[in-house]
Structures are given as structure tokens and as C-alpha cells.
């Protein structure tokens, strides 16, 4: 997995948001910190059948199933 620059990760995050707009299991998107650089973080409430790419526009994609988010 080749890390990306922060600018590339931000651009990929925006484009990935459009791609995943209809994925009901999507919880959130962010910039992932990976070894040596950045990626896109895709958080899901539950597993999805949608084929989320492991690399998008040359940027690594990190998927995590996080459930729901509540105030602590």
C-alpha cells in the first residue's frame, strides 16, 4: 500500500463521498493516517455488500466497521 500526500487524500475523500453516497451502511469518511503518509478512512456501521476499493485514485482506502457513535 503506497501512501498518498494529504492533498491527494483530501481529493480522493471528496470523490469517494460521491461514490458511496447511496451506501446505507456508511457512517463517515475521513483522512486516514497510514505509515508514511495518508489515505482515506471509510467507516461503516455494519458490513456492506458494496465493493469498496482498497485503493481509490491511487490513494489507499482503510475500511473499519465502527457501529454507531454516541456521546460519552
Amino acid at each position, binding site marked *: 500500500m503506497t501512501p498518498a500526500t494529504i492533498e491527494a487524500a483530501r481529493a480522493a475523500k471528496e470523490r469517494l463521498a460521491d461514490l458511496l453516497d447511496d451506501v446505507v451502511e456508511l457512517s463517515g469518511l475521513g483522512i486516514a*493516517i497510514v505509515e508514511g503518509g495518508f489515505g482515506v478512512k471509510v467507516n461503516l456501521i455494519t458490513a456492506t455488500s458494496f465493493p469498496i476499493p482498497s485503493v481509490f485514485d491511487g490513494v489507499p482506502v482503510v475500511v473499519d466497521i*465502527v457501529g454507531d457513535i454516541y456521546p460519552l
Partner: protein
Amino acid sequence: MDLESARVVKRELEGFFRSRYRNEPPRGRFWLGIAPGAVPTEYGIAVRAETEADLPDAARRSIEELSKGPVDVRFTGRITALASVPGATRGAAIGASVAHRMCDAGTLGFFARKISDQSIGLVSNNHVIAAEDIGAEGDDILHPATCDGGARTPVVIARLVGGYPALRQRNPGLDCAFARLVDGTAYDPQSVDGQKVSPEIVAAETLLEVSKVGRTTGLTRGRVSAFEVDAPVHYSFGRVRFRQQIEIQPAENAPFAGGGDSGSLVFTTTGYHPVGLLYAGSTRGGGSGYGLGYANPIDAVLRALGVTFLT
């Protein structure tokens, strides 16, 4: 109902009672929780009160009508602390138990100076010291929170300053509020984990090892796993979609934070530089499965509240 549904119903009930008793506190005192059902995958609402007199009939009827499932009511007698949570006995300090009178316990994040009038106060979350937008200018902020009282009587250490960022707005970005310290309140402005918090803040754009000191889980360590995170958080009144948040995964074989840790200052493990203000957590994920913590970027908190760190 399943566990997630029970959690949602509990939060709805808490919101119902908060709004209902805004100007007229209930005479009774009762607590809500989640009770295991007859089979392992079923859950209901737990209602606990010291005596029957502490659970008014009207409140009991409302709970039964709104809970859409089984209600487990028990009268516990007087409950005394067996082992106090870390933040209950800290005194007015970073990591101490605090709350608005209408809120569950949360954490005192840090002390700050209001730029406009140079007054000194504390910063925590809106949902801890401003009751999810219900709190008004001058409302009492208690330490420890009422539910952490035990042998230590909660005292008013600060009064809420109005004009904090609202959660119920079109583009909410922060869960934070400032409360001015009451004259004569003794406090420890900077100590955390035996060190001093630095007033120099750090952005979460590098691989940061971070820590926090919370009311419930005390000192824990984590790592920033993502930033500029856009994600929804489920409050008692509904879902709020935040943008540009910091995400933290546990660095140890334990959760980074638990219920009651909201408001904790997240700081770098080396150098004690402020990074964020913890306000939420996920139920799963984070590699270990203990869930992720979510924090407001500290620079945005300072800007929105018009405060600076005490030096």
C-alpha cells in the same frame, strides 16, 4: 428489542425527561439503564430508584408508554460508592467529574481564560455542562457530578457562560462550552498525569500518540487514526452530523474512553500538547474492537469559545 434499539429508547427517554423537567425538576429521583431480557439477544429498559417514593407514578407511566418494550423496575435502597470513579475525588482539576444539574457525569477538560473579559473558567462538552443546548447563562456546574457524589457532596464550582456553539443547528461543528469559575474555587490549572499541559496546541495531521485523563477511565493512551472525519453522532434529541473531527483508536488492550469521559482533553503523550476535546465514541471498531474515540479539534474549540489556555 435488540441492544441498539434499547440504547436508542433509553436516550429518547432521557431526552424526554430532560425537556419535560426543564423548569420543574421531578420530585422523585430515578435512573435509567438497559436490562438484559429473557434471552441473550433481547434487552429492555432498566429503571432504578432508591424507594418507591422516588419514582412518581406519572414518570413510571411515561416510561412504560415510551419504551416500546419490557421495563425492569427495581428499588435499590441507598447506594453508596464502593470504589469511586477516578474523577470524583480529583478536586477541581483536569480530568475531574463535572456536570450541569440536568446532565449525567462528564469530564472537566481544561481551564481557560475568556479573551473578552479575562475571566477564568473550565471547558467541557455542551452535552456535559450545557445539557445539549438547554443550559442557560449562569446555570450551576457541579463537581463532582451528582451521580458521583457518594461521600463527597457536589458543589457549584462554575457557572455556565451562554453563547456556546449549539448542537441543534444547521451546520454544527463542535460539542463544547465554557463555564466561569465561582469565586473562591480552588483549582489546579495545568496538572495532568503529574506533568503540566503545554499551552501550545498541535494539529492532528501527524501520527500522534495521544492520551487523555477522564472522569471514568482515568489516564488512557491512544493514537490518532484519522482526522477531518465527517460522521454522525446520536444525541438524545437526534442525529448530529459533525465535520472535520479527530478519530482516536486505543493504543492499549482497553477502550480509549468510556461513558463519563466526555469533555476530556486529548493531548500528545509526549510533550502534553493539546490536540482535541473528546465528546463521543463508537460502539465497535478501532482494530481492537474496543471502539474509537472522537474529538473536536482543539483550535476550533478555543476559537468558538473565545478562550485561551491558562499559562
